[in-house]
């Protein structure tokens, strides 16, 4: 049972998936500078999956990949939460803030341009939470579309 939309919708959705995913990744990476973050950006990227499933009626077998990505995201979030204890502070303490290195830059007090290399553990947590939300919402959509007969799995 093949269920798919017209060739116009399929072409437009194939083109629009790229800017949607890029915008979602932008929201995730700039979560500590602009409104947005892991949850919101992950939902935006998962909407690209929904667009592909609805327009094409078919998607490759990404179940294992999504499952691995989701578990990895939650595990890394736990590890980042316990990093504060490992470094000698409390749980969820921002122990990487202002120490140099990746995401270790310092922020001027007040209004500033907003450099992406700041924030300590906050952008790292944004990235892992975004990973988890992308995989979780896409996995729910994939499973529901497949088992309701709306989508068939491409080989």
């Amino acid at each position, binding site marked *: 049972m093949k269920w798919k939309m017209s060739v116009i919708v399929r072409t437009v959705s194939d083109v629009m998936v790229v800017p949607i995913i890029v915008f979602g990744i932008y929201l995730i990476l700039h*979560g*500590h*500078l*602009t*409104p947005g*973050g892991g*949850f919101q950006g992950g939902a935006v990227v998962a909407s690209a999956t929904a667009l592909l499933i609805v327009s094409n009626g078919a998607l490759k077998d990404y179940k294992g990949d999504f*499952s691995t990505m*989701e*578990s990895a*995201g*939650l595990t890394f*979030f*736990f590890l980042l*939460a316990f990093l504060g204890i490992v470094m000698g502070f409390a*749980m*969820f*303490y*921002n122990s990487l*803030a*202002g120490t140099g290195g990746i995401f270790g*830059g*310092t*922020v*001027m*007090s*007040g209004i*500033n341009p*907003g450099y992406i290399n*700041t*924030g*300590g*553990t*906050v952008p790292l*947590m*944004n990235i892992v*939470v975004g990973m*988890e*939300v992308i995989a*979780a919402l896409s*996995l*729910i959509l994939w*499973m*529901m579309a497949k*088992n309701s007969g709306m989508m068939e799995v491409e080989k």
Partner: protein
Amino acid sequence: MKKVIAMIALLIIFAFLAGAIVEMRGEDGGFGNPVNTDMDEYFLGDSQPHNQVNNVVTAVLFDYRGLDTLGEATILFSAVSGVLTVLRKIKAPKEVEK
């Protein structure tokens, strides 16, 4: 009878909410400046020097209230586990007997 009880309960809850809104007003009677602002000033003033983060909302989400976010992520994980459990492929009992 049930509708009457539901209406009375709704009115009581609405009265409590309206009272809470009135309690939230500032000293000049407006909604613009609430009475207790200690935590607001702490978050707005200290999230930049303490966390090196420009976005105060993200600083609250992932640092001050990080445990809430951990629970949120765990809820999402368990929701996906529930969906996968409900929608899994199982063989019907007749097929198993053959």
